[in-house]
């Protein structure tokens, strides 16, 4: 597990402290990267959807991946997690190359993702969803499965751990309900809780705020922050600028498949390249007259109107 908060403060290379004073340039090297991607490209027919030279994700912080629609964020996400194969390039997780490593192996190594359209298993109960997330279960091997005494103890431990997580995410009252009966926001919570069952070091959230009502948004924000406090690293794709500003320690901006800017949230949102990428139509107007909040709001509005086709 990465360093927890107490060491983050004393150690100048890990966590948030390591980001202080870094050059806000695309591809800048991080002092303690958990994930490094290099030379990743992915072509769909004539379209180069992803063309990332170099990008590093710092351990123990919350990193946001933003960009206008069609920037290739979700495709890049799929390439990082092994759900899609890159045409070229490699990525490494904790220094280990992930070339030709299957998506399930990537998850077992500690890099677990969620999905833009939540993938809870709606015909299983909430608890069964959670239990599925636990790794190394003896009862998942076919020869041991019929012999209950071989896995009953482990199942009890898994259930206890699942119940703790459900309590933390305030889903414990729903444990025995079918996951299909949950609301959209609760499904997001369940998916996040379930991914924690795998015991990840890096949690990859694909649009965690999409389709979540404002009340639940606040608690979801709190949960994402708590992942960082408990020592995990988070990389998330998001269109919700409030969320990006509120919780991210570092922002990576993509446009047209490339990383065009990086930096702390305050500075990156004022970056000329980012404004150009989001608001190409406003090139002719004087950029200094535009209020940043309005820009962000406009970008968000565009997102909302196009939600669903941003893959």
């Amino acid at each position, binding site marked *: 597990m990465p360093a927890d908060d107490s060491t983050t403060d004393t150690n100048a290379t890990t966590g948030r402290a390591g980001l202080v004073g870094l050059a806000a340039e695309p591809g800048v090297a991080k002092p303690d990267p958990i994930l490094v991607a290099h030379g990743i490209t992915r072509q769909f027919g004539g379209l180069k959807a992803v063309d990332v030279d170099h990008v590093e994700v710092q351990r123990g912080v919350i990193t946001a991946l933003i960009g206008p629609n069609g920037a290739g964020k979700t495709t890049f996400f799929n390439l990082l*997690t092994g*759900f899609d194969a890159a045409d070229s390039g490699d990525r490494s997780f904790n220094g280990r190359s992930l070339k030709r490593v*299957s*998506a*399930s*192996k990537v*998850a*077992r190594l500690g890099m*677990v*993702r*969620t*999905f833009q359209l*939540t*993938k*809870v*298993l*709606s*015909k*299983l109960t909430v608890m*069964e969803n959670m*239990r*599925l*997330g636990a*790794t190394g*279960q003896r*009862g*998942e*091997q*076919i020869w*041991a*499965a*019929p*012999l*209950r005494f071989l*896995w009953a103890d482990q*199942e009890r431990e898994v259930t206890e751990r699942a119940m703790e997580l459900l309590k933390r995410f305030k889903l414990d009252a729903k444990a025995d309900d*079918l996951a*299909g*009966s949950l609301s959209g926001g609760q*499904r997001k919570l369940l998916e996040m809780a*379930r*991914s924690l*069952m*795998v015991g990840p070091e890096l949690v990859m959230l694909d649009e965690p705020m999409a389709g979540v009502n404002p009340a639940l948004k606040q608690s979801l924000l709190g949960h994402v922050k708590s992942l960082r406090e408990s020592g995990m690293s988070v990389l998330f794709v998001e269109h919700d600028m409030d969320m990006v500003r509120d919780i991210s320690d570092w922002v990576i901006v993509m446009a047209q498949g490339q990383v065009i800017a990086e930096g702390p949230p305050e500075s990156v949102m004022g970056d000329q390249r980012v404004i150009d990428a989001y608001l190409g139509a406003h090139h002719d107007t004087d950029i200094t007259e535009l209020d940043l909040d309005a820009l962000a709001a406009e970008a968000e509005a565009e997102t909302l109107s196009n939600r669903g086709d941003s893959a």
Partner: protein
Amino acid sequence: MPDFISIPFHDGLSPIAISYVLAAMGLNIHFGYTGLLNFGQAAFAAVGGYALAVSIVSFDVPFIPALLLGLLGAVILSLIMGIPTLRLRADYLAIVTIAVAEILRLVVTTSYKDYFHARDGVSGFTETFRSWSPYRSMDGNFLTFSPGDLWVMTVGWTMVVLLSLLTYLLVRSPWGRVLKSIREDEDAVRSLGKNVYSYKLQALILGGMIGAIGGFVGALGLASVQPDTFTTDFTFIAFTMLILGGAGRVLAPVVGAVAFWALLSLLAVLLGELSDLSWMPDSLLDNTRIGNLRFAAVGIALMLLMIYRPQGIFGDKKEIAIDAR
């Protein structure tokens, strides 16, 4: 006993019905629990039946090793069907399985006649099995069943009970939980670190082996194996039985298959008697049309079932009604 009770009773419990029960149990693992569309269950039953018959008749293999050869054949067949297709979308498995089943049937119909004897089929492999029968000295029939059938049924229904128990234990284990999750959304399962491909292959092999056991029972019941037993109808009737019982339920294939056979022969008896009464003109109903009419009637019954009870006899309405998409 009147015909309309004794004949459906006989057909519903006969060795042939058992072979369909086992084929449907295999499909229940494939389709009911894992969501794999195997349209070639006939191939697994054929491999079981032919491996047993040919290895005994042509190669003098003892009975038990011949059974093991049949199971091994089913494993190899699953690997041939599964390795290239299980990484792809579900449709590809369906296409490959139906093609493999037809290729196998055509091969045994037209080639290697010294071993497969084409349409005549292979016979003369039941001696050892019959010599173990405790009913050999029995005179006459018991509840309409001959002593030979009774022995096949004793072994066959015992297999059904044991395999149902195994299925019950498996689907209630964490292994079964992974299968049911794959049925719903394999990407979600993959994202949680499970090797989906390996689980699908395991399910295909297990269901295929159960199908091959169905082939053994069918072969022993008929005392011969013929290619015409293993047409695509075999697979589709087994699917029908499974859906009638309610896919994804342990006892669904058993109840579905018995109910299907009993219903089919009940209709044959009733339609036969109806045509003897000559109430209807021969152009609508005569003895030569009964075979087709009863299938039409079963078809209508199935349509009504799908409309009013899509989950089958045992299925859970909630599992059907809630859909995330």
